[in-house]
């Protein structure tokens, strides 16, 4: 039969002598890292003003009745978080969990306490609780719309306070005859997968449409009056294990300090997001988004001799040139074949490797003259990475 012959052809191809592979796993890793970084850069398009506007619109939350015997809530946090003051003490996470990323923005902080889990912290006034419905503003890094959750099922005590399981069904489309979702704010129906059901106003599914919950363990609780935490975990057990040891508040962490600053900026430039990425090869690094370009990143290498401009972002690099800026030799390149974002990098400015990324190459070179390295001694570091 023809089918058997086709199978025979494939067997033959499977046994054919293969030439040496032209595949590089390190390159795939670096490119993957670059794409993850690029994804994060896209949050620049979600300016801080949006979060501030949402904060202004959001009505004060109503605190659900505390259960008898529950402990008093810690002091209220401010209506906006500080970019230099993580609200969550990540050192209290269970042993073995990672502390990969922390995004900080006014009114909103996002942590990845462990692979596949996300913790959102929303400052006082960001979410409102009315008639058992918790409405929180959009996640500026992932989703597109305000979210409303029905808090139906209690999940036990977290920090002595009632917590709730949040039904977070994500809708997935399956192929050409799957579901089509109508999402307000999008120009037309979409087949995108992974849309939170709370965003979808209309669904049209063929018989092959599927939907399931991506996160079975999404937990919501107040970590301070009117301040809500939303923890997405793969299972309820993981969610509770991660949530219970967490500590919050201004005293949970020492402030983040910065070994590089962008000076000479207009007073309107504010830091929107700090992306902290602990890495074994670097003692610390951060990307500082100001709501528009440029983006300032820095790293201090455990072994200074390994400092490299081409560690992050990842290859393939294009248009690589060098230049002198204020007696500092810098490398200039862009990552993608289309130069949407240029990077100017100094591998060693008083022991600190510094990248400045933006869309305008010549403007970046001018701005790089305003970058100041504060050296490797934390005593000399700044508490805010932008100066007038």
């Amino acid at each position, binding site marked *: 039969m023809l089918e058997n012959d086709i199978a025979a052809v494939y067997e033959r191809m499977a046994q054919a002598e293969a030439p040496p592979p032209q595949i590089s796993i390190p390159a795939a890793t670096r490119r993957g890292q670059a794409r993850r970084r690029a994804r994060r850069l896209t949050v620049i398009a979600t300016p801080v003003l949006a979060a501030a506007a949402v904060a202004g619109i959001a009505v004060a939350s109503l605190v659900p009745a505390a259960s008898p015997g529950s402990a008093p809530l810690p002091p209220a946090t401010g209506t906006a978080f500080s970019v230099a003051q993580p609200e969550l003490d990540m050192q209290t996470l269970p042993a073995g969990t990672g502390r990969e990323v922390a995004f900080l923005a006014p009114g909103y902080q996002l942590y990845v306490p462990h692979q596949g889990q996300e913790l959102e912290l929303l400052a006082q006034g960001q979410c409102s609780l009315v008639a058992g419905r918790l409405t929180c503003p959009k996640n500026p890094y992932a989703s597109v719309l305000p979210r409303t959750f029905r808090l139906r099922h209690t999940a036990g005590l977290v920090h002595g306070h009632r917590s709730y399981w949040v039904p977070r069904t994500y809708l997935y489309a399956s192929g050409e*005859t799957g579901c089509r979702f109508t999402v307000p704010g999008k120009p037309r129906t979409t087949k995108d997968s992974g849309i939170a059901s709370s965003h979808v106003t209309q669904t049209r599914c063929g018989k092959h449409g599927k939907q399931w919950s991506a996160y079975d363990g999404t937990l919501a609780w107040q970590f301070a009056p009117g301040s809500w935490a939303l923890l997405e975990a793969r299972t309820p057990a993981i969610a509770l294990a991660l949530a219970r040891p967490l500590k919050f508040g201004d005293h949970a962490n020492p402030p983040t300090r910065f070994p590089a600053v962008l000076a000479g900026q207009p007073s309107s430039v504010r830091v929107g997001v700090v992306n902290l990425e602990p890495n074994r090869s670097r003692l610390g690094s951060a990307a500082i988004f100001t709501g528009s370009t440029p983006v300032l990143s820095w790293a201090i290498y455990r072994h200074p001799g390994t400092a490299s401009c081409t560690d992050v972002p990842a290859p393939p690099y294009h248009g690589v040139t060098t230049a002198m800026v204020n007696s500092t030799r810098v490398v200039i390149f862009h990552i993608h074949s289309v130069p949407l974002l240029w990077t100017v990098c100094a591998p060693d400015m008083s022991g600190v490797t510094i990248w400045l990324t933006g869309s305008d190459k010549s403007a970046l070179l001018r701005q790089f003259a305003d970058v100041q390295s504060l050296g490797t001694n934390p005593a000399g570091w700044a508490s805010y990475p932008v100066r007038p």
Partner: protein
Amino acid sequence: MTATDRDRDYAEFIGGQLSALRRLAYMLCHDWHRADDLVQVTATRLYLHWGKAAASSNPDAYMRTILFREFVHEQRTSWARRVTVTGDLPVRPAPQADPDAAVDLEPRIAALPPRQRAVLVLRFYCDQSVAQAAGILGCSEGNVKSQTARALAALRQSPGIQAYAGETGPESRHPYREVTDHA
């Protein structure tokens, strides 16, 4: 898990799968260079989704799904439409003992549309059921059946195969029924 641990786990996994992945890509592309490109893209995409893949019960299947979908998707892009790979397919001696030595199917399979090629590889090399193939390609089972039927029909229409196909009996004129038998 730190970023470095994540990267190490990923590198170990993909390193172990590379050979099998290349061969699978070669069956789809019928060209080692394009196969390597496809595997490279797959490896990058797997890195992006490594969290989910590692947490899934079957990371191999996750990776294979990325490969197949990337292959089908790549062929839809304007780049694939613009760029025509010229040159003959590599000539490979057919086994002499093989009864169909006179009819080399490989170039004819290579000439099929990408989605049909993907379906054939899934059905006749990976031994996936119609439902499994549909899940991997992200399409309906009916779509898999029709693509398989069209691919088989196209191969039967190829010169040199028509006569051969005529010998296989009346069922070969009803490819849809044949395909469903494989489900």
